């Protein structure tokens, strides 16, 4: 036989090419899926130093978010409550509970409880709670149903594209400002209509340019 390659060579070659194409396609697809912020960034649920249940406090007991995170309306920053806030009640409620030992120690020593940050934005992003809350964006829009979470977990991607979605079309996410902490609020009509009214009355037009968030 004189030819360099056997007759089968071409078949082999075609299979190889086909295989290559398929694998490459699959790889690309998988990457696209797993690198998507929705998949990549959500679901983060760090273990907190104290087993504090938002479900219990905000859900069952129906405490308002602002009792602890009392700066959301006044500041860019939503304060993590100082130990005193816990002790306001827990001097009376379950004063002996072993689970609260850490809290009592912190109160006694004046050392803060090192809570773990759940919702982290890049340092060059300047998110302002005051601006959003006073516009009528509910906590639930970014933090999800915290009142149903035993351990707080990140449910939204918090990516730039995700922010832009809302900045481009805020209406569906707006509600009367007194309802922002009412996580289970169900509007009786199309939320977008309500949102549009609020936008009109409050003159809300979220920034779409860089300096809106990056300074």
């Amino acid at each position, binding site marked *: 036989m004189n030819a360099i390659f056997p007759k089968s060579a071409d078949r082999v070659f075609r299979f190889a090419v086909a295989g290559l194409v398929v694998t490459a396609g699959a790889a690309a697809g998988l990457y696209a899926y797993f690198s998507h912020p929705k998949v990549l960034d959500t679901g983060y649920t760090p273990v907190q130093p104290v087993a504090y249940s938002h479900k219990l406090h905000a859900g069952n007991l129906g405490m308002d978010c602002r009792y602890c995170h009392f700066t959301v309306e006044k500041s860019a920053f939503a304060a993590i409550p100082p130990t005193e806030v816990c002790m306001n009640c827990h001097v009376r409620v379950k004063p002996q509970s072993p689970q609260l030992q850490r809290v009592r120690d912190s109160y006694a020593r004046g050392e803060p409880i090192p809570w773990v940050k759940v919702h982290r934005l890049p340092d*060059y992003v300047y998110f302002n709670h005051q601006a959003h809350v006073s516009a009528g964006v509910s906590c639930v829009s970014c933090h999800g149903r915290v009142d149903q979470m035993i351990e707080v977990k990140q449910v939204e991607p918090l990516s730039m594209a995700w922010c832009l979605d809302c900045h481009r079309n805020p209406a569906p996410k707006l509600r009367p400002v007194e309802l922002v902490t009412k996580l289970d609020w169900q509007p009786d009509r199309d939320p977008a209509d309500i949102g549009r009214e609020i936008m009109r009355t409050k003159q809300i037009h979220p920034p779409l340019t860089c300096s809106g968030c990056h300074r």
Partner: protein
Amino acid sequence: MRTGKTYWRSLDELARTPEFEQWLHREFPENASEWTGKASRRNLLKLMAASFGLAGLVACRRPVERILPAAKGVEEYVPGNPMYYATAFSLGAAAYGLHVEAHDGRPTKIEGNPQHPASRGAAGSFAQASILGLYDPDRAKWVRKDGRRSSWEEFEKFAAGRFAGQGAGLRFLSGEIGSPSLEAVKKHALQRFPQARWVEFEPVSQDEPMAGAQLAFGQPVRAHYHFEKADVILALDCDFLGLDAPTLSYTREFARRRKIGTPQDRMNRLYVAEANYSLTGAAADHRLRLRASEVAALLAELAAELKVFGETLRVLPAASGARRKWLAAVARDLAAHKGRCLVLAGPRQPAVVHAWVHLINQLLGNAGATVTYTAATWTPQTQALKELASEMAAGQVSTLVILGGNPVYNAPADLDFASHIKKVECVIRHGLEEDETAALAHWTLPEAHYLETWGDARAWDGTCSIQQPLVAPIYEGRSAAEVVALLSGYPHRRAYDIVRNFWSALSEPQWRKALHDGVTPTPPSAELKVTADARRIQGLPLPPPATGVEINFQPDAGVWDGRFANNGWLQEAPDPMTKLTWDNAALLSPATARSLGVNTGDMISIQREGRELKIPAMILPGHADNSITLPLGYGRTRCGRVGRGVGHNVYPLRTSGAMSIAAGGKVSKAPGRYKFSLTQDHHSMEGRPIVREATLEEYRKHPHFAHEPHQELFSLYPEHSYDKGNQWGMVVDLNACIGCNACLLACQAENNIPIVGKKEVARGREMHWIRLDRYFSGPEEDPEVVYQPMACQQCENAPCENVCPVAATAHSPEGLNEMAYNRCIGTRYCANNCPYKVRRFNFLEWHKDIDQLQRMQFNPDVTVRMRGVMEKCNYCVQRIQEAKIKAKAEGRRPIRDGEILTACQQTCPAEAIVFGNINDPNSKVSQLRKQDRNYAVLAELNVKPRTTYLAKVRNPNPELV
């Protein structure tokens, strides 16, 4: 990308350092007491602590004494929101009122206190930069005994034994005291130790003016000038806009008389006669190049012209030639404005000159009108120090307590302080730095930074302010008052008690108000009616012009007398006139340089009274011939990392006999060259219409002189309209701008602008967002100077935006040319294509070596840029956003005019910068844009800059043009 918020991260790291452990254990026990529910100071601190995790701990370092937020601050603390406190900063005896912005307990930014007469809302470069001193990692941290770390307790034990007797051989040496409460403690100490003596010494002192007043009035008085009333001003070697305090209020008043809205408006006229080219000289309508030592003669000639002593008496030499012509015109001008003119002499001029000036002002009817006097007590400082030195030499001093200052470095050379101090048995040194003096002390005590401790300060005009701390001492620093109180057994020991007790006359509400406003209700010093004794003054001998080459010692615009040597911002801020950074140089005129055969950068040797100094020369056009100016404060040998060995120390040439103007200097070329780092190496405008200038005459003839005729400009594309909402714009009045660096430093502090160091500046990589472009025009020997603050012009058709491949810089609907650092990949194409060259690139990781502590100064509202990204002025967009969010939250729609102040605008003592909404016809900025003088630089490129300039108008004397 790291940002202002990085400090949280770095704090976590910091938390592992021993100092931090210490803070932890020192602070919390005393705070861990009651939680009252409502916002008491203490739980505020704990709020912060809790809210920020460890970051708050710094905040917790606030002392527990009650402090009240100032005007702008909200009464109750909200984590994340900045708070503002009123306090005071003093340079020698001149105090300036400040508002300090604090984020979560970290002071981050300094502004002037609008209610304070000496600041009027402005803060000069020294005050602006002083915040960096607070976070200086090289500060004196601990009590040291013979260099080894000790403690306050040990020192107290030692002091108890040492300071028992009547104070024989005990001497105190301090800087000039401007603090009433410290004066009280001082008085107490001198009563407690009757045989002790107290010497006050400032290298840059008011000795001569006070002596001059003594000659003229028979008593030391302090003169106050009222520029708003003066139509004609003659400044003799007096840099009242630059370094001869109190410049801020003077600058403001002067600038207000330079701003003209229409050709009909009246302007003041400034004549300057000086040796060095000062900011005041740059602002002058007529400047006479004159050796400082000839000012006396000039004054005499002026007196002759003014016929001060009547026709008959002809004891005075008359001027001749050009100078005569000049003088005659000036004299006529002054005479024509009796009671509305002003003659001043600088503190460097000898007493007799000041006496003459007082007399002339009196005869011109200015006394009581444009110049007023207040009583002052004065002991000649240099003399006092001289006596102290001789006592030390004679071994009569057993204990020397040095409070502040740095005499070993900056005492007159002939006193030989450094060797005499070794004869003192016990030297106790209290200061901010571990400097040359500390090195020779037995005990060194850390001084608290003025933002760390309580105190008070008296301004030039006698107004008093309470200096309230923003943080508890980061290290073990204590205030001078505390130290003296400790030594002398003063009834109160803690700074707060000392101050509060001194002001016990103030009721609690008054006290709160004083803290809140930043000024105490005590009135300024009462005006004093004095008359100069013409006969006596006439009899005074006039100092002859200096023989040989005259040498002028001047405080430096960057490091003053050397006390700011370790401040990177000030070191890197280019000298307003020479644009020299990280250095001083022997300034001389082109002619003098030619005669010496030296060029800029050549080393020269200056000999005087057997002392020699080798220093690089720098040619300064417009400097007086046969005269050399030596800026003080460089060549520090024991200093922090920043200032050590920077520049050349000229003190060795400065003797008690010639503190300001030295005669008989021998100057020659020395071998060797020296490399300067200049931020601007081309000084001519090349005939380009960049800074547009006219005389008042011309302006009245052609009100539109500022408008270059160029053909109709249009774009190939349909253009975006900017007629809705806020449209930000800025106008800079070149008539008001005096070229001081205040805006540059304010911008640096506000926008986390890095320091790059001498080498990188030489490479052309300085990062300042504002350049103060300085152009010489006219003859090289005697040019005029114009300044132009040049930052991003926010072009509507921005060339930089077009060329960015990744759209990292784009335009906002409000007309801002935005820079998204986090999108930037650093092609530098935008900077290349910027006709104004105002973009700055992070060539290296400038923040790499920044101390954790220094990061506390970062403004958390501004991203800290990493290497490889472009940055530039953005009209303080963080302030704009803050204001907009505030306006929204308050349901208030439009943002008030003047509600947003850019950092540069807010601090400008001349009010030269106006920022606002050009879409609102009534806003100040729109009004200014309507003026004839308004023009845009490089308008012919059709880039449509949002920053425009008001052309400069000088008001020369028609007789002299």
